[in-house]
């Protein structure tokens, strides 16, 4: 391995380990990222299950599985936001400024935050999945389908972490929280959240047509029902978003290097 890669890995490992230790040792930081998806799962899958009786609703695996995919991907996105808030917190405490001086490969910082975000989300997604199964979710997809769903979740999580990290690197304040949360929240809710896309009406139907979250959601629902759909489009969107947000985060890092 070249010294370049070795330096990046060392920085990423140190940042990830610190972030994870900090998150798991502070229930006030970790619990909300766990509780929010569970509440959405209960509220949507429990409270709105009658929507499966709307004429034209034809998802074969039931409403809990239909909503589970949304909550699964939403938890991946908000897991990224929580990691972004941790980046902002590190700037406010002066920790990142010290890291910028000490780290031989600064892009390792971003890699470290992304790795920590992925581990945090894997814990959250496990709990959400167990909760969904406990409430009677039907899974019709096989192992390969579920692996596809997990990969989509990871792509969403990495995208959101890179976006939130990019925002944090630019603003370097916890007050940037709404700037991370609101765009992600709106993007997710402008997709077919409650009913399939062809049952949407009005301006949300138009927005859902061009929203990449729609492809991710529909592919995820295809995986869990064992009837994969729009898989290539969803993965192209996921990989494209990761690449785009990766550039956004690295440019944010360069700005932080100049200004912090």
């Amino acid at each position, binding site marked *: 391995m070249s010294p370049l890669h070795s330096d990046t890995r060392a920085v990423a490992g140190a940042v990830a380990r610190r972030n994870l230790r900090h998150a798991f040792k502070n229930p006030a930081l970790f619990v909300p990222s766990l509780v929010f998806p569970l*509440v959405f799962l*209960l509220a949507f899958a429990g409270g709105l299950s009658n*929507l499966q009786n709307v004429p034209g609703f034809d998802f074969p695996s039931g409403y809990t599985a239909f909503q589970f995919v949304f909550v699964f991907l939403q938890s991946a996105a908000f897991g990224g936001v929580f990691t972004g808030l941790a980046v902002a917190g590190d700037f406010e405490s002066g920790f990142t400024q010290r890291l910028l001086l000490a780290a031989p490969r600064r892009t390792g910082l971003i890699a470290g935050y992304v790795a920590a975000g992925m581990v945090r989300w894997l814990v959250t997604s496990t709990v959400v999945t167990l909760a969904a199964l406990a409430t009677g979710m039907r899974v019709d997809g096989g192992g390969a389908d579920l692996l596809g769903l997990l990969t989509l979740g990871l792509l969403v999580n990495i995208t959101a972490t890179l976006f939130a990290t990019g925002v944090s690197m630019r603003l370097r304040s916890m007050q940037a929280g*709404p700037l991370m949360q609101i765009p992600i929240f709106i993007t997710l*809710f*402008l997709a077919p959240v*409650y009913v399939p896309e062809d049952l949407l009406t009005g*301006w*949300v139907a138009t927005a859902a047509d061009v929203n990449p979250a729609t492809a991710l959601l529909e592919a995820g629902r295809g995986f869990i029902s064992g009837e994969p759909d729009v898989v290539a489009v969803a993965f192209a969107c996921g990989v494209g978003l990761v690449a785009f947000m990766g550039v956004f985060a690295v440019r944010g890092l360069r700005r932080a290097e100049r200004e912090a």
Partner: protein
Amino acid sequence: MSATDRGALATQVGFIARRSVKRTLRQPALIVPTIAFPLILLAVNASGLDSASRLPGFPAASYLDFAIVVTFMQGALFAATTAGTELATDIESGFLDRLQLTPLRASAILLGQLAGAVAVALIGALAYLTVGLIAGVSIKAGIGGVAVLVALAVLIALAFAGIGAFFAARTGSAEAVQGLFPLLFVTFFLSSISLPRDLIEIGWFRTIATWNPLSYLVEGLRSLVITGWDGTALASGFGVGAAITILSLAAASSALKSRMART
């Protein structure tokens, strides 16, 4: 309490209320999200959930009519955090300590502090109504119903502001008050806020929604929009709203007195 005492209390409440209203209205960061966020959610959900209005037994012609009152509930949620954060900030900054050197009573401080949150809730209620009416919502109870709707919305905001003030007085921390938001948010979702209780299919969820007092607040507000004058729904809405207001203000007043006695 003599008439002179009552007059003195009213004057004290007036002083604190003026400061609270001025301070709140001077912060766009408090007002804009309170008005904009519920309206954005309404726009998204009214369109995304419109197919729910095709369910047999759904009580409204459109989901927008059904969901307009959700904005009032979200406004009340913001009132809770606004009132709590402002009181906690006064505790953290030492302003409450300085007030103790004056003849002000704890009850006057509490009632005055809530004025800012109630003012924001009132502005929000009028904004939600205006946008709703422009978007095509029709209020079945007519003009009188609009007045009652605003009155109930303000009562609900006062009830939630009392809860925020209680948390603030107990903890003395604005950060702890912010932690109240997810808790109340959870309670909102576990009510009849998204579908009528008789259309909730899952038994345990319907039971929680039936026990959740927030369901009765929502249903009281909603009855004016989609039913007209429904005495039972209104009595439940005002009854639950008044009960939460009395309990939360009594708890907040007691917590504030304890805090003032300690410092």
